[in-house]
């Protein structure tokens, strides 16, 4: 099947098997290996990306379902060599250890903070429930998202700049 989709603002066209998973398309065809595969059953969330600005698990979407849509992966968050405030907060608060769940966790946090600019700790925990982390015990992840929220809320202008075109469209 012929598909055409935008990944991180770049157009990709390919002839793919209808059964090809989106995550395999991202990792193998588009060579974007920041999106990880942890379970292939949409439980762990390591493969979370944004599809038209919404966090989705790319291991249980077909590449053909992303036809004519816009995908954002972890590789697109940093701009001009500067980390996105969520990435920066994960770094500062030690919100990661082995790093395998991290890209998915950050993409989920991205959506969470779009929907709720000042979440409580409980709302953060609920928001990342679809993402498993086996290393951190989540506490530093909660702190990181809390801190990113505070920074993004305090500096709305900077946040606007950091927003992806896809998320602005939402």
């Amino acid at each position, binding site marked *: 099947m012929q598909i055409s989709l935008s990944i991180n603002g770049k157009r990709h066209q390919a002839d793919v*098997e209808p*059964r*090809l998973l989106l995550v*395999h398309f991202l*990792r193998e065809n588009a*060579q*974007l*290996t*920041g*999106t*990880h*595969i*942890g*379970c*292939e*059953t949409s*439980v*762990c969330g*390591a493969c979370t990306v944004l599809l038209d600005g919404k966090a989705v698990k790319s291991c249980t979407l077909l590449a053909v379902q992303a036809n004519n849509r816009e995908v954002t*992966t*972890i*590789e697109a*968050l*940093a701009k001009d060599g500067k*980390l996105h405030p969520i*990435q920066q907060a*994960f*770094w*500062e608060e*030690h919100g*990661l*250890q*082995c*790093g*395998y*769940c*991290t*890209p998915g966790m*950050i993409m989920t946090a991205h959506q969470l903070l779009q929907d709720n600019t000042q979440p409580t*700790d409980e709302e*953060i*925990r*609920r928001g*990342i*429930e679809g*993402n*498993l*982390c*086996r*290393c*951190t*015990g*989540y*506490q*530093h*992840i*909660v702190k990181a998202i809390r801190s990113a929220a505070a920074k993004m809320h305090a500096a709305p202008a900077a946040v606007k700049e950091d927003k992806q075109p896809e998320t602005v469209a939402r």
Partner: protein
Amino acid sequence: MAQRYIGQSVKRTEDPRLVSGLAHYVDDIKLPDLHYVSFVRSIHGHAKIRRIDNSAASKMPGVVRIFTGEDCRNVGSVPTAGALENLKVPHHPVLALNKVRYVGEPVVAVVAQSLYQARDAADAVVVDYEPLAAVVDPIKAASPESKPIHDEFSDNIAYTWTLSGGDVKQAFKDADRIIKQRMEHQRLIPVAMEPRGVIARYFPGEKELTIWSSTQIPHLMRTQVAIMLGLPENRLRVVTPEVGGGFGSKLNVYGEEALLGHIAMQLGKPVKWIETRSENFAATIHGRGQVGDVEIAIKNDGQILGITYKIWADLGAYHQLLTPAIPTLTGLMLPGTYRIPAIRMDVTGVFTNKMATDAYRGAGRPEATHVIERAADLVAQELNMDPVEVRRKNFPAKKDFPYSTATGLSYDSGNYEASLKKALKLGEYKKWRREQEKGRKKGRYLGIGISTYVEICAMGPSPAMPAGGWESATVRIEPTGKVTVLTGASPHGQGQETSFAQIAAEMLGVDLDDVIVIHGDTAIVQYGIGTFGSRATAVGGTAVYRAVQQLIKKASVLAAHLLKLPKNQVAFRDGKFYSSSNPEKSLTLQEVALASHIAKNLPKNYEPGLSATYFFEPKNFTFPFGAHLCVVEADRETGSVKILKYAAVDDCGKVINPLLVEGQIHGGIVQSLGQAFMEEAVYDENGQLITGTLMDYAIPRAMDVPWLELDRTETPSPVNPLGVKGVGEAGTIGATPALVNAVVDALRPFGVKHIDMPLRPEKIWRLMQKEAQ
């Protein structure tokens, strides 16, 4: 003097690549002409293989070759390092021969040009099995009536092992009371977020095989796989790229690692296999799996005179690297934080039709801590004493350290009262006891659990280890003054690229950014042991420390020569060599490094270049300790348990990076919480793994976890010059009994004395349906 890096919460140097999605795990490595391997694995717990029919599969698109056990007869047995007397070691083929002995055992390997083609073809392979009765329960498996699962042995008992210290008979004779309890430590599945993965590539010209693998032990694995393949060790290169968590599950040598090497050599093509999550559940090692009877001899004042513990260890079908050794660690640590003069542990290691158990975070020590800390609470309940007082009564005092246990260990340093006191304050013990009292009158069931733990870490002195317990480091100052550290440790999330750089930068007086830490490539890094057993900082960090010391010593000789001073008049401080009498006269480290490399003006007999290598052999283990306090509320209507407070005071000796230590403790406690409340690997009577996916096996999610309040005490270890002890497993070892003790305490009005994990709501609800006392 405040230190610039050591002891500071430095942000990790490895993080920018990880938060940006730019790191390289095994699956992120692409090679030209890469082929893919997919496995056909046993669907039976125990069966004869009658026939394997590859005819349809081999005609499918993209299929290059299909391997069965017959095609791999010249690949050696998967190794075990457990060197116990009279250990039965069954042949452990990389692909099953004639019989399968656990669900998930690899039977056929299909190689194809793409992953999808490999999986399609694997589905088309037909294996004709004759199912056999499975042996699942370890106690039944040990009985003479049970049929042996390995034809070469007469029974399923792989070994028996006894550890005894002090006069056990006398202790039980002198006792006022004897408490008995059966306890079970359920099987757990480690679930590192990155499954295992292997790539193998063979260059016939260079006769060089390269294996990329997600492992905790690149060098040990290389030695073992070279032996399995009959390959000279120096023709095998093992590369460990980014590793997405291990928790012991990658402290192993797996059949797939050698098999991929074999396939790459046979086909002359690079091959890749990435474990699916289902394969990870069925065919990566499991943890725990002990059931046993504990007997405690006590005086009426709460003094513990002796303990015996007789267990059956559920080993699974074959030995993996450390399978038989794990329960022996339980025996060594059975005294816990107490002065117990008489101890005996009897282990019966049993083969069952399941995946092998092996080292999972804590590895035998969480079991010991759980037994002794549950025992302390059983004593308190029996004597109607405060569990805090039972603990205090039996602690060795600060002045008793180094403390010799009845199990033959020497605890390096400790102050158990100090950490307990701090934990009681942080956890507001007295307040919660009052709340509990008030609550019970109103039908509100609060429970308070305490755990005081000690763990055996920094593994370890080589005589006590199966394959060397030292660690290595090379430190180089490049001609431009940049510092390169090569460590034999193999971190996989712990952050040693940062903490080892902190050690080197502190000592050399350079910026952290000027230091790079390289690990996990046997072609670059000198032989090393790896990262496990809370050892990397205490053993590997010390190797870095010693290597830097040697380096400074060497550079001082050249600096003295260049400054035209006697050696004893040169001092090194803040990255500069000074004349001790005239500080104006100095050379930077960089200037000395350059001079050492261009080598135009060297002292007599001075070796050019500037690098030092040190292999550090520790004299003893280290013994981190701490006290955890947990407050829970159990709901009689639903059986659910809510954690109202969790306070942990841990002492891991001197701390290189407090932020990383916190992260290790958080993660460990939450894995404990998983064991205490949710996790259990369940096999049915046919040996089917019922909990084979993340849909059936619950690991903690963010919502399941309470806020963890942490504090520390700091008792330096005398075992190494940094005074560090290790922290990787502390949370997993210390937390489980605090959680379980809290729930048992909450259910005390219902006459409950002990509950086996996992404490699922159904279990709790049933126990709360009686009339409360």
